[in-house]
Protein backbone atom coordinates (compact mmCIF):
# COMPACT_ATOMS: atom_id res chain seq x y z
CA UNK A 1 0.00 0.00 0.00
CA UNK A 2 1.36 3.42 -0.78
CA UNK A 3 2.14 5.93 1.95
CA UNK A 4 -0.81 8.18 1.10
CA UNK A 5 -3.30 5.33 1.47
CA UNK A 6 -4.41 6.06 5.02
CA UNK A 7 -8.04 5.28 5.67
CA UNK A 8 -7.97 6.93 9.11
CA UNK A 9 -7.43 10.39 7.57
CA UNK A 10 -10.74 11.81 6.23
CA UNK A 11 -9.08 13.64 3.34
CA UNK A 12 -7.06 10.62 2.23
CA UNK A 13 -10.07 8.35 2.75
CA UNK A 14 -12.11 10.49 0.39
CA UNK A 15 -9.27 10.38 -2.15
CA UNK A 16 -9.12 6.60 -1.77
CA UNK A 17 -12.86 6.46 -2.52
CA UNK A 18 -12.13 8.18 -5.84
CA UNK A 19 -9.36 5.73 -6.65
CA UNK A 20 -11.63 2.86 -5.65
CA UNK A 21 -14.39 4.09 -7.97
CA UNK A 22 -11.82 4.59 -10.72
CA UNK A 23 -10.40 1.11 -10.11
CA UNK A 24 -6.73 1.93 -9.70
CA UNK A 25 -6.18 0.48 -6.20
CA UNK A 26 -4.07 -2.65 -5.72
CA UNK A 27 -5.79 -5.79 -4.52
CA UNK A 28 -4.70 -5.21 -0.89
CA UNK A 29 -5.77 -1.57 -0.93
CA UNK A 30 -9.09 -2.53 -2.47
CA UNK A 31 -9.70 -5.21 0.16
CA UNK A 32 -8.89 -2.77 2.98
CA UNK A 33 -11.16 -0.14 1.45
CA UNK A 34 -14.02 -2.58 0.93
CA UNK A 35 -13.94 -3.66 4.56
CA UNK A 36 -14.54 -0.02 5.48
CA UNK A 37 -17.06 0.45 2.69
CA UNK A 38 -19.18 -2.41 3.99
CA UNK A 39 -19.80 -0.66 7.33
CA UNK A 40 -19.58 3.08 6.64
CA UNK A 41 -22.48 4.96 5.08
CA UNK A 42 -20.26 8.02 4.66
CA UNK A 43 -17.76 6.04 2.62
CA UNK A 44 -20.59 4.53 0.56
CA UNK A 45 -21.80 8.06 -0.18
CA UNK A 46 -18.26 9.10 -1.15
CA UNK A 47 -18.05 6.24 -3.66
CA UNK A 48 -21.49 7.08 -5.07
CA UNK A 49 -20.45 10.72 -5.52
CA UNK A 50 -17.25 9.67 -7.27
CA UNK A 51 -19.19 7.42 -9.62
CA UNK A 52 -21.34 10.39 -10.56
CA UNK A 53 -18.22 12.48 -11.22
CA UNK A 54 -16.54 9.77 -13.27
CA UNK A 55 -19.63 9.18 -15.38
CA UNK A 56 -18.55 12.32 -17.24
CA UNK A 57 -16.22 10.04 -19.22
CA UNK A 58 -19.25 8.14 -20.54
CA UNK A 59 -21.21 11.29 -21.26
CA UNK A 60 -18.61 12.51 -23.75
CA UNK A 61 -19.06 9.42 -25.96
CA UNK A 62 -21.22 9.71 -29.05
CA UNK A 63 -24.11 7.21 -28.81
CA UNK A 64 -23.98 4.34 -31.33
CA UNK A 65 -27.08 2.25 -32.07
CA UNK A 66 -26.41 -1.47 -31.60
CA UNK A 67 -27.61 -3.92 -34.29
CA UNK A 68 -31.19 -5.20 -33.95
CA UNK A 69 -29.95 -8.73 -33.22
CA UNK A 70 -28.80 -7.64 -29.75
CA UNK A 71 -32.33 -6.78 -28.63
CA UNK A 72 -33.62 -10.06 -30.01
CA UNK A 73 -31.18 -11.97 -27.80
CA UNK A 74 -32.14 -9.93 -24.74
CA UNK A 75 -35.87 -10.38 -25.34
CA UNK A 76 -35.43 -14.13 -25.75
CA UNK A 77 -33.17 -14.49 -22.70
CA UNK A 78 -35.46 -12.47 -20.44
CA UNK A 79 -38.64 -14.07 -21.74
CA UNK A 80 -40.00 -10.68 -22.84
CA UNK A 81 -40.07 -11.45 -26.57
CA UNK A 82 -43.41 -10.74 -28.20
CA UNK A 83 -45.30 -14.02 -28.38
CA UNK A 84 -46.26 -15.37 -31.80
CA UNK A 85 -49.93 -14.96 -32.70
CA UNK A 86 -50.83 -18.58 -32.10
CA UNK A 87 -49.71 -18.33 -28.48
CA UNK A 88 -51.89 -15.34 -27.65
CA UNK A 89 -54.90 -17.13 -26.19
CA UNK A 90 -57.21 -14.17 -26.71
CA UNK A 91 -57.16 -14.89 -30.40
CA UNK A 92 -58.91 -18.20 -29.86
CA UNK A 93 -62.07 -16.54 -28.55
CA UNK A 94 -64.96 -16.83 -30.98
CA UNK A 95 -63.56 -19.80 -32.81
CA UNK A 96 -65.46 -23.01 -33.43
CA UNK A 97 -65.28 -25.88 -30.94
CA UNK A 98 -63.12 -27.89 -33.31
CA UNK A 99 -60.73 -25.08 -33.80
CA UNK A 100 -60.67 -24.48 -30.05
CA UNK A 101 -59.79 -28.14 -29.37
CA UNK A 102 -57.03 -27.90 -31.89
CA UNK A 103 -55.82 -24.71 -30.28
CA UNK A 104 -55.88 -26.34 -26.85
CA UNK A 105 -53.83 -29.24 -28.15
CA UNK A 106 -51.28 -26.88 -29.62
CA UNK A 107 -51.16 -24.84 -26.42
CA UNK A 108 -50.77 -27.92 -24.25
CA UNK A 109 -48.00 -29.22 -26.44
CA UNK A 110 -46.23 -25.92 -26.15
CA UNK A 111 -46.82 -25.79 -22.40
CA UNK A 112 -45.14 -29.15 -21.98
CA UNK A 113 -42.07 -27.59 -23.46
CA UNK A 114 -42.42 -24.53 -21.25
CA UNK A 115 -42.70 -26.68 -18.12
CA UNK A 116 -39.10 -27.62 -18.60
CA UNK A 117 -38.14 -24.09 -17.59
CA UNK A 118 -36.06 -23.76 -14.44
CA UNK A 119 -34.80 -21.15 -12.04
CA UNK A 120 -31.77 -19.56 -13.61
CA UNK A 121 -28.79 -18.24 -11.69
CA UNK A 122 -26.48 -17.97 -14.70
CA UNK A 123 -27.07 -17.37 -18.36
CA UNK A 124 -24.94 -17.65 -21.49
CA UNK A 125 -26.20 -16.51 -24.88
CA UNK A 126 -24.55 -18.37 -27.77
CA UNK A 127 -24.58 -15.92 -30.67
CA UNK A 128 -24.54 -16.77 -34.35
CA UNK A 129 -21.80 -15.15 -36.46
CA UNK A 130 -24.22 -12.29 -37.22
CA UNK A 131 -24.71 -11.78 -33.43
CA UNK A 132 -28.30 -13.04 -33.50
CA UNK A 133 -28.98 -15.47 -30.62
CA UNK A 134 -28.44 -19.14 -31.54
CA UNK A 135 -28.93 -20.82 -28.18
CA UNK A 136 -29.53 -19.68 -24.62
CA UNK A 137 -27.93 -21.71 -21.85
CA UNK A 138 -29.42 -21.23 -18.38
CA UNK A 139 -27.91 -22.85 -15.30
CA UNK A 140 -28.79 -22.98 -11.62
CA UNK A 141 -26.44 -23.00 -8.63
CA UNK A 142 -27.37 -26.66 -8.16
CA UNK A 143 -25.94 -27.57 -11.55
CA UNK A 144 -29.15 -27.92 -13.54
CA UNK A 145 -28.56 -26.64 -17.02
CA UNK A 146 -31.09 -25.96 -19.77
CA UNK A 147 -30.05 -25.34 -23.37
CA UNK A 148 -32.73 -23.74 -25.55
CA UNK A 149 -32.40 -23.37 -29.30
CA UNK A 150 -33.56 -19.90 -30.39
CA UNK A 151 -32.53 -19.65 -34.02
CA UNK A 152 -29.19 -21.41 -34.43
CA UNK A 153 -27.48 -21.23 -37.79
CA UNK A 154 -27.32 -24.68 -39.37
CA UNK A 155 -23.83 -26.20 -39.02
CA UNK A 156 -21.97 -27.44 -42.10
CA UNK A 157 -23.60 -30.52 -43.69
CA UNK A 158 -22.86 -33.67 -41.72
CA UNK A 159 -21.62 -31.73 -38.70
CA UNK A 160 -23.01 -30.95 -35.23
CA UNK A 161 -22.26 -28.34 -32.57
CA UNK A 162 -21.01 -29.64 -29.23
CA UNK A 163 -20.99 -27.70 -25.95
CA UNK A 164 -18.03 -28.07 -23.57
CA UNK A 165 -17.21 -26.93 -20.07
CA UNK A 166 -13.55 -25.91 -19.81
CA UNK A 167 -12.51 -25.88 -16.15
CA UNK A 168 -9.52 -23.78 -15.23
CA UNK A 169 -7.86 -26.47 -13.12
CA UNK A 170 -6.34 -28.27 -16.09
CA UNK A 171 -8.87 -31.10 -16.08
CA UNK A 172 -9.87 -32.28 -19.54
CA UNK A 173 -12.89 -30.52 -21.07
CA UNK A 174 -16.25 -31.95 -20.10
CA UNK A 175 -18.81 -32.43 -22.84
CA UNK A 176 -22.27 -31.07 -22.02
CA UNK A 177 -23.77 -32.62 -25.11
CA UNK A 178 -24.68 -31.91 -28.72
CA UNK A 179 -26.60 -28.64 -29.07
CA UNK A 180 -30.15 -29.20 -30.28
CA UNK A 181 -31.16 -27.58 -33.56
CA UNK A 182 -34.62 -26.93 -32.14
CA UNK A 183 -36.36 -27.29 -28.78
CA UNK A 184 -34.40 -27.64 -25.59
CA UNK A 185 -32.31 -30.12 -23.67
CA UNK A 186 -31.47 -30.52 -20.00
CA UNK A 187 -28.01 -31.27 -18.68
CA UNK A 188 -26.86 -32.00 -15.13
CA UNK A 189 -23.44 -30.71 -14.18
CA UNK A 190 -21.60 -33.52 -12.34
CA UNK A 191 -21.04 -32.84 -8.64
CA UNK A 192 -17.27 -32.61 -9.00
CA UNK A 193 -17.71 -29.64 -11.37
CA UNK A 194 -20.31 -27.77 -9.30
CA UNK A 195 -17.93 -25.38 -7.55
CA UNK A 196 -15.99 -24.48 -10.67
CA UNK A 197 -18.61 -24.38 -13.42
CA UNK A 198 -19.89 -20.79 -13.01
CA UNK A 199 -16.37 -19.42 -13.63
CA UNK A 200 -15.41 -21.92 -16.32
CA UNK A 201 -15.29 -21.14 -20.00
CA UNK A 202 -17.98 -22.57 -22.24
CA UNK A 203 -16.85 -23.58 -25.69
CA UNK A 204 -18.83 -24.69 -28.74
CA UNK A 205 -17.00 -26.84 -31.27
CA UNK A 206 -17.90 -28.21 -34.68
CA UNK A 207 -17.86 -32.02 -34.62
CA UNK A 208 -18.82 -35.08 -36.59
CA UNK A 209 -22.17 -36.63 -35.59
CA UNK A 210 -21.79 -38.23 -32.18
CA UNK A 211 -19.40 -35.52 -31.01
CA UNK A 212 -15.73 -35.62 -30.17
CA UNK A 213 -14.75 -38.91 -28.56
CA UNK A 214 -12.74 -37.13 -25.89
CA UNK A 215 -11.92 -33.61 -24.85
CA UNK A 216 -8.49 -34.00 -26.39
CA UNK A 217 -9.71 -34.39 -29.95
CA UNK A 218 -12.09 -31.51 -30.25
CA UNK A 219 -13.01 -29.94 -33.56
CA UNK A 220 -12.64 -26.25 -34.40
CA UNK A 221 -13.97 -23.74 -31.85
CA UNK A 222 -17.02 -21.79 -33.03
CA UNK A 223 -17.66 -19.78 -29.89
CA UNK A 224 -16.20 -19.24 -26.47
CA UNK A 225 -17.66 -17.39 -23.50
CA UNK A 226 -18.66 -17.50 -19.87
CA UNK A 227 -21.83 -17.51 -17.83
CA UNK A 228 -23.23 -14.23 -16.56
CA UNK A 229 -24.58 -14.30 -13.02
CA UNK A 230 -28.14 -13.04 -13.12
CA UNK A 231 -28.21 -12.32 -9.40
CA UNK A 232 -27.40 -8.89 -8.11
CA UNK A 233 -24.44 -9.77 -5.93
CA UNK A 234 -21.79 -9.02 -8.53
CA UNK A 235 -23.48 -6.03 -10.07
CA UNK A 236 -21.92 -3.00 -8.42
Amino acid at each position, binding site marked *: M*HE*SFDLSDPHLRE*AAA*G*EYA*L*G*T*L*TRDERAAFESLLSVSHDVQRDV*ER*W*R*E*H*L*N*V*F*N*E*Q*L*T*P*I*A*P*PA*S*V*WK*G*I*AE*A*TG*TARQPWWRRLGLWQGMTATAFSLALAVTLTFSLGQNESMESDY*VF*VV*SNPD*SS*PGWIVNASHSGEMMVQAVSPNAPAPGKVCELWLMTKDGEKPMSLGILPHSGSMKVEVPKEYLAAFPDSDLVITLENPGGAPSGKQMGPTLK*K*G*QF*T*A*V*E*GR*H*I*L
Partner: protein
Amino acid sequence: MQDSRNDALVEYLLGCARQDAQALDRLYRATSAHLYAQLLRILRHEASAQDCLQQVYIRIWAAAGQYDASRARPMTWLGTMTRNIAIDWIRRQRPSEHDSDELIAAMPGLSDIEADVDLAQHSGELHQCLAELNEDQRRALELAYFEGLTHQDLANQLDQPLGTVKSWVRRGLERLKTCMSHLI
Protein backbone atom coordinates in the same frame (compact mmCIF):
# COMPACT_ATOMS: atom_id res chain seq x y z
CA MET B 1 -34.92 18.30 -19.97
CA GLN B 2 -32.25 16.30 -18.21
CA ASP B 3 -34.49 15.88 -15.17
CA SER B 4 -37.42 14.61 -17.21
CA ARG B 5 -35.13 12.11 -18.93
CA ASN B 6 -33.86 10.95 -15.55
CA ASP B 7 -37.42 10.60 -14.28
CA ALA B 8 -38.39 8.52 -17.30
CA LEU B 9 -35.40 6.23 -16.85
CA VAL B 10 -36.21 5.79 -13.17
CA GLU B 11 -39.75 4.79 -14.16
CA TYR B 12 -38.42 2.24 -16.65
CA LEU B 13 -36.10 0.77 -14.02
CA LEU B 14 -38.98 0.51 -11.56
CA GLY B 15 -40.98 -1.19 -14.31
CA CYS B 16 -38.17 -3.67 -14.89
CA ALA B 17 -38.16 -4.42 -11.17
CA ARG B 18 -41.86 -5.35 -11.58
CA GLN B 19 -40.88 -7.51 -14.57
CA ASP B 20 -42.76 -5.23 -16.97
CA ALA B 21 -41.58 -6.21 -20.46
CA GLN B 22 -42.58 -2.87 -21.97
CA ALA B 23 -40.41 -1.04 -19.43
CA LEU B 24 -37.39 -3.09 -20.48
CA ASP B 25 -38.15 -2.35 -24.12
CA ARG B 26 -38.35 1.41 -23.41
CA LEU B 27 -35.24 1.38 -21.25
CA TYR B 28 -33.37 -0.38 -24.04
CA ARG B 29 -34.53 2.16 -26.64
CA ALA B 30 -33.52 5.05 -24.40
CA THR B 31 -30.13 3.81 -23.22
CA SER B 32 -28.69 1.06 -25.43
CA ALA B 33 -26.88 3.40 -27.82
CA HIS B 34 -25.10 5.07 -24.88
CA LEU B 35 -24.14 1.80 -23.21
CA TYR B 36 -23.08 0.27 -26.55
CA ALA B 37 -20.78 3.26 -27.20
CA GLN B 38 -19.31 2.74 -23.74
CA LEU B 39 -18.74 -0.98 -24.39
CA LEU B 40 -17.13 -0.27 -27.76
CA ARG B 41 -14.80 2.21 -26.08
CA ILE B 42 -13.79 -0.32 -23.43
CA LEU B 43 -13.66 -3.51 -25.51
CA ARG B 44 -12.80 -2.10 -28.95
CA HIS B 45 -14.44 -5.10 -30.57
CA GLU B 46 -17.97 -5.10 -31.95
CA ALA B 47 -18.95 -8.74 -31.37
CA SER B 48 -17.68 -8.64 -27.76
CA ALA B 49 -19.47 -5.35 -27.15
CA GLN B 50 -22.72 -6.86 -28.46
CA ASP B 51 -22.33 -9.94 -26.24
CA CYS B 52 -21.70 -7.72 -23.21
CA LEU B 53 -24.62 -5.45 -24.08
CA GLN B 54 -26.91 -8.48 -23.94
CA GLN B 55 -25.44 -9.39 -20.56
CA VAL B 56 -26.02 -5.85 -19.30
CA TYR B 57 -29.75 -5.87 -20.04
CA ILE B 58 -30.20 -9.43 -18.80
CA ARG B 59 -28.69 -8.28 -15.50
CA ILE B 60 -30.79 -5.13 -15.44
CA TRP B 61 -33.88 -7.29 -15.81
CA ALA B 62 -32.75 -9.43 -12.87
CA ALA B 63 -31.42 -6.66 -10.65
CA ALA B 64 -33.48 -3.54 -11.34
CA GLY B 65 -35.08 -3.98 -7.90
CA GLN B 66 -31.73 -3.02 -6.37
CA TYR B 67 -31.70 0.39 -8.05
CA ASP B 68 -32.12 3.22 -5.54
CA ALA B 69 -32.86 6.57 -7.17
CA SER B 70 -31.76 8.41 -4.03
CA ARG B 71 -28.23 7.04 -4.37
CA ALA B 72 -27.42 7.27 -8.08
CA ARG B 73 -28.75 8.76 -11.29
CA PRO B 74 -30.02 6.04 -13.62
CA MET B 75 -27.33 6.56 -16.26
CA THR B 76 -24.62 6.42 -13.59
CA TRP B 77 -26.01 3.16 -12.24
CA LEU B 78 -26.33 1.69 -15.73
CA GLY B 79 -22.90 3.00 -16.75
CA THR B 80 -21.26 1.54 -13.66
CA MET B 81 -22.88 -1.83 -14.27
CA THR B 82 -21.85 -1.74 -17.92
CA ARG B 83 -18.27 -0.83 -17.05
CA ASN B 84 -18.06 -3.63 -14.46
CA ILE B 85 -19.36 -6.22 -16.91
CA ALA B 86 -16.93 -5.08 -19.63
CA ILE B 87 -13.89 -4.95 -17.37
CA ASP B 88 -14.85 -8.30 -15.87
CA TRP B 89 -15.07 -9.62 -19.42
CA ILE B 90 -11.56 -8.31 -20.18
CA ARG B 91 -10.14 -9.82 -17.01
CA ARG B 92 -11.74 -13.18 -17.70
CA GLN B 93 -10.01 -13.28 -21.06
CA ARG B 94 -6.64 -12.98 -19.36
CA PRO B 95 -4.92 -16.32 -18.95
CA SER B 96 -3.54 -15.42 -15.52
CA GLU B 97 -3.75 -12.82 -12.81
CA HIS B 98 -0.71 -10.92 -14.09
CA ASP B 99 -2.00 -7.76 -15.65
CA SER B 100 0.72 -7.11 -18.17
CA ASP B 101 0.35 -5.18 -21.39
CA GLU B 102 1.53 -8.17 -23.38
CA LEU B 103 -1.29 -10.32 -22.09
CA ILE B 104 -3.89 -7.66 -22.73
CA ALA B 105 -2.56 -7.16 -26.25
CA ALA B 106 -2.69 -10.91 -26.87
CA MET B 107 -6.26 -11.34 -25.71
CA PRO B 108 -8.35 -13.16 -28.28
CA GLY B 109 -10.71 -10.83 -30.01
CA LEU B 110 -9.20 -7.55 -28.92
CA SER B 111 -6.44 -7.72 -31.50
CA ASP B 112 -8.97 -8.35 -34.26
CA ILE B 113 -8.10 -5.35 -36.40
CA GLU B 114 -10.80 -6.11 -38.96
CA ALA B 115 -13.52 -5.53 -36.41
CA ASP B 116 -11.75 -2.73 -34.61
CA VAL B 117 -13.93 0.30 -34.22
CA ASP B 118 -13.16 3.92 -34.55
CA LEU B 119 -12.10 5.20 -31.18
CA ALA B 120 -12.50 8.82 -32.15
CA GLN B 121 -15.94 8.80 -30.60
CA HIS B 122 -15.65 11.96 -28.59
CA SER B 123 -18.55 14.22 -29.25
CA GLY B 124 -17.48 17.59 -30.59
CA GLU B 125 -17.20 19.36 -27.29
CA LEU B 126 -15.18 18.02 -24.43
CA HIS B 127 -17.02 18.23 -21.12
CA GLN B 128 -15.83 21.40 -19.41
CA CYS B 129 -14.56 19.49 -16.38
CA LEU B 130 -12.47 17.15 -18.51
CA ALA B 131 -11.03 20.20 -20.25
CA GLU B 132 -9.78 21.33 -16.84
CA LEU B 133 -7.44 18.35 -16.61
CA ASN B 134 -4.00 18.51 -18.14
CA GLU B 135 -3.18 15.99 -20.85
CA ASP B 136 -1.32 13.56 -18.55
CA GLN B 137 -4.07 13.58 -15.96
CA ARG B 138 -6.82 13.06 -18.50
CA ARG B 139 -4.97 10.26 -20.27
CA ALA B 140 -4.26 8.45 -16.99
CA LEU B 141 -7.87 8.75 -15.80
CA GLU B 142 -9.31 7.69 -19.15
CA LEU B 143 -7.05 4.65 -19.36
CA ALA B 144 -7.96 3.62 -15.84
CA TYR B 145 -11.66 4.23 -16.38
CA PHE B 146 -12.07 2.57 -19.75
CA GLU B 147 -9.46 -0.16 -19.55
CA GLY B 148 -9.62 -1.14 -15.89
CA LEU B 149 -5.94 -0.44 -15.23
CA THR B 150 -4.48 -0.19 -11.74
CA HIS B 151 -1.77 2.32 -10.82
CA GLN B 152 0.91 -0.26 -11.62
CA ASP B 153 -0.71 -1.14 -14.98
CA LEU B 154 -0.83 2.56 -15.82
CA ALA B 155 2.84 3.01 -14.92
CA ASN B 156 3.75 0.09 -17.20
CA GLN B 157 1.57 1.23 -20.06
CA LEU B 158 2.61 4.88 -19.91
CA ASP B 159 6.25 3.98 -19.19
CA GLN B 160 6.36 6.32 -16.23
CA PRO B 161 7.45 5.88 -12.59
CA LEU B 162 4.69 4.62 -10.32
CA GLY B 163 4.82 7.76 -8.16
CA THR B 164 4.34 10.01 -11.18
CA VAL B 165 1.29 8.08 -12.34
CA LYS B 166 -0.25 8.08 -8.86
CA SER B 167 0.22 11.82 -8.72
CA TRP B 168 -1.49 12.31 -12.11
CA VAL B 169 -4.43 10.20 -10.98
CA ARG B 170 -4.85 11.84 -7.61
CA ARG B 171 -4.50 15.41 -8.86
CA GLY B 172 -6.71 14.65 -11.84
CA LEU B 173 -9.41 13.27 -9.54
CA GLU B 174 -9.17 16.33 -7.29
CA ARG B 175 -9.60 18.71 -10.22
CA LEU B 176 -12.48 16.69 -11.59
CA LYS B 177 -14.23 16.69 -8.21
CA THR B 178 -13.74 20.42 -7.70
CA CYS B 179 -15.13 21.23 -11.13
CA MET B 180 -18.05 18.79 -10.92
CA SER B 181 -18.99 20.01 -7.45
CA HIS B 182 -19.31 23.55 -8.78
CA LEU B 183 -21.67 22.37 -11.50
CA ILE B 184 -24.12 20.74 -9.12
